[in-house]
C-alpha cells in the first residue's frame, strides 16, 4: 500500500503504536494483579481466622493444669519401663544372636529339611542354647542333618531327643544345640 506520509510521521506512528502496546501491557498487568489479589482475599481471611483460633487454643492449653495420671496409665507406664529395662539389660549382656550361628545351621541344612522356628535361650548361669524346630521327610535325612551339625565346629553339642524318630516320615523334629 502506497502511503505518502513523510518518514518522520511514520516513525511517530510506530512510536505511538509501541507506546499504546506498553500502556496496554501495564494495564493488563495491573488488572491481573487486582484480580489475583481479590481472588486471594477469601483464602487470606479464612487462614488468618484459623491462625488466630489455633493460637488461642494453644494459649488456653498452656494455661490449663496438667492432667493427673490414672491407675491404668501408671500400670502401662510401669510395664513399658520394665520392657525397656529388659531390652537394655539384654544389650548389656551382649547376647545378640550371631549371624554366624544361623549361617552355620543353614549351611548344614539339607534341602529337604524345613526349619520352622529358631529360639535363642540364655540360662540363668549364662549358658546359651539354640532350639530348632522343623520337618524332615524321613528318619535317615534327620539323622544325616544331626550328624552334619555335630561335625560342625560352630557347635559344642547337638541334642536330638529319640522321640523325634517315632514317626517314619514327615517327622516334626525338635533339636537343641549349644553353640561353641
Amino acid at each position, binding site marked *: *500500500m*502506497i*502511503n*505518502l*506520509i*513523510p518518514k518522520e*510521521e511514520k516513525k511517530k*506512528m510506530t512510536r505511538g503504536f509501541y507506546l*499504546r*502496546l506498553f500502556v*496496554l501491557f501495564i494495564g493488563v498487568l495491573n488488572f491481573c494483579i487486582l484480580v489475583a489479589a481479590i481472588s486471594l482475599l477469601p483464602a487470606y481471611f479464612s487462614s488468618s481466622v484459623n491462625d488466630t483460633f489455633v493460637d488461642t487454643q494453644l494459649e488456653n492449653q498452656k494455661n490449663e493444669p496438667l492432667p493427673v495420671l490414672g491407675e491404668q496409665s501408671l500400670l502401662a507406664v510401669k510395664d513399658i519401663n520394665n520392657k525397656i529395662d529388659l531390652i537394655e539389660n539384654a544389650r548389656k549382656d551382649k547376647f545378640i544372636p550371631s549371624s554366624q550361628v544361623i549361617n552355620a545351621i543353614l549351611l548344614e541344612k539339607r534341602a529337604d529339611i524345613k526349619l520352622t522356628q529358631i529360639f535363642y535361650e540364655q540360662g540363668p548361669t549364662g549358658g546359651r542354647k539354640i532350639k530348632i524346630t522343623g520337618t524332615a521327610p524321613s528318619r535317615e535325612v534327620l539323622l544325616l542333618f544331626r550328624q552334619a551339625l555335630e561335625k560342625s565346629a560352630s557347635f559344642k553339642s547337638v541334642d536330638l531327643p529319640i522321640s523325634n524318630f517315632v514317626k517314619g516320615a514327615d517327622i516334626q523334629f525338635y533339636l537343641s544345640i549349644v553353640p561353641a
Partner: protein
Amino acid sequence: MLMDSFDKFFFRIFPPPKFFSAPSFGLDISDESLKFIELIATKNGIRVGRHGERVIPPGVIESGKIKNSKKMEEILTLLRKEEGVRSVRVSLPEEQVYLFQLRLEKAGLKNVREGIELALEEHVPIKAEDAIFDYDLVKEDAQSIEVQVATITKNIIENYLLIFKHSDLEVKSCELEAQATCRAVVQAGDKGTYMVVDFGKKRTGIFIVSGGIVMFTSTLDLGGIMLTQAIQKSFNISFEEADKMKHEYGLQRNSANQEIFSILLNSVSVLRDEISKHFLYWNTHKDEEGKNNPLIQKIIFCGGDSNLIGLADYISVSMKIPVEMANVWVNIVNTGSYIPDMSFRQALAFSTALGLALGDQAN
C-alpha cells in the same frame, strides 16, 4: 493463504481492543465536498459505522490544493467535534500526485528507496529533496525489480498534515485517490486488468489497475454537474429540476426523452472519447522491454454520478467491452447477510472513502 485465513478467523473471534487498534475514518476530500466513513470490525464481519458528507465552500480547495487553510481547519474541527473522528486516512487528488513505473537493476542496488531517490528527478519535475514518495513492488526477477512509484511535493503533504494537526486529527495514511477507489471496487486478490472510471460531480478519474496495483491514472474536468447544467441551460429550468430530470430519464432513448438524450449524449460522448483514448493507449502501449500491457478485461464505473440510467450500456455498446457498475461492498460485507444503511448511488459516491477506510482492515 492458510495463515491469512487463520489471522482473519483469529481477529474475528478476538478483535483487538479499540484503544489499541485506533480505528480510523476514510476521508475523501475533493474540491466541493468531504466524505467520511467508518468501518467497524465486529464478530459478524465488517459493519458500516458513522458516515456522511460535508460541503466545502468554493475557493477552499482548488484542484486538490488547499487555498484557505483556516476554513479547512474549521471544517475538520467541526467534523471532529460532531462525529467524534480521531484518526483518518486521507486521499490525495490525482492532480497533485505523480505516478510512474521504474525498473531497478539489482546489481549494485543496496536499498530500493535509495535507488528510487536517485532516479526520481528523471521521471518527475520535482527535486528529490522536495519530494515524498512511496512504492509498490510490481514484479521481480533475478536481474531487476519493477516498482510503481507515487510522488508528491513535500509542501503539499506538509500543508495537509499541518491542517490536520491543527484540527487535532491524526493522519494514519495519505493515499492516492485511485488506489483507495480500486481497493473498494476490485475484489481483493483479483489480479486482472480493469479500467476504473470514477465519475464524480465535477471531475472524472480514469484509473487502470493491473495485478492489484494502480498502473495509470488520469483526471478529466468533466462530471455530473456539467450534464445537469447542460439540461438546465437547454430547458431553462432550475438546477434542482434539471438534476431530477437527469436522474429520471438519463440516457434512455425513447420518444419521451428524445431531447434529454441528445443533450446528455453530447457531454457523455466526450467522456466516451476520453475513456476510449486511454483504453487504446493502454492496450496498444508497450513497456520498456517491448512487451504489451495486459489487455483491459472490463470497465468498472463508480462515483456519485455513475449511476446515470443508460450510461454503462452506452459505453459498453460503443466501445464493445463489458462495463459494469462497481460493487463497493465486495471487500467489505456479504450483502446476502447484511445490507449497509446506504443507497446504491450514495455507496458509489463513497467508493474512495470506503477504500480508504478499508486500509485499516488491510493492515
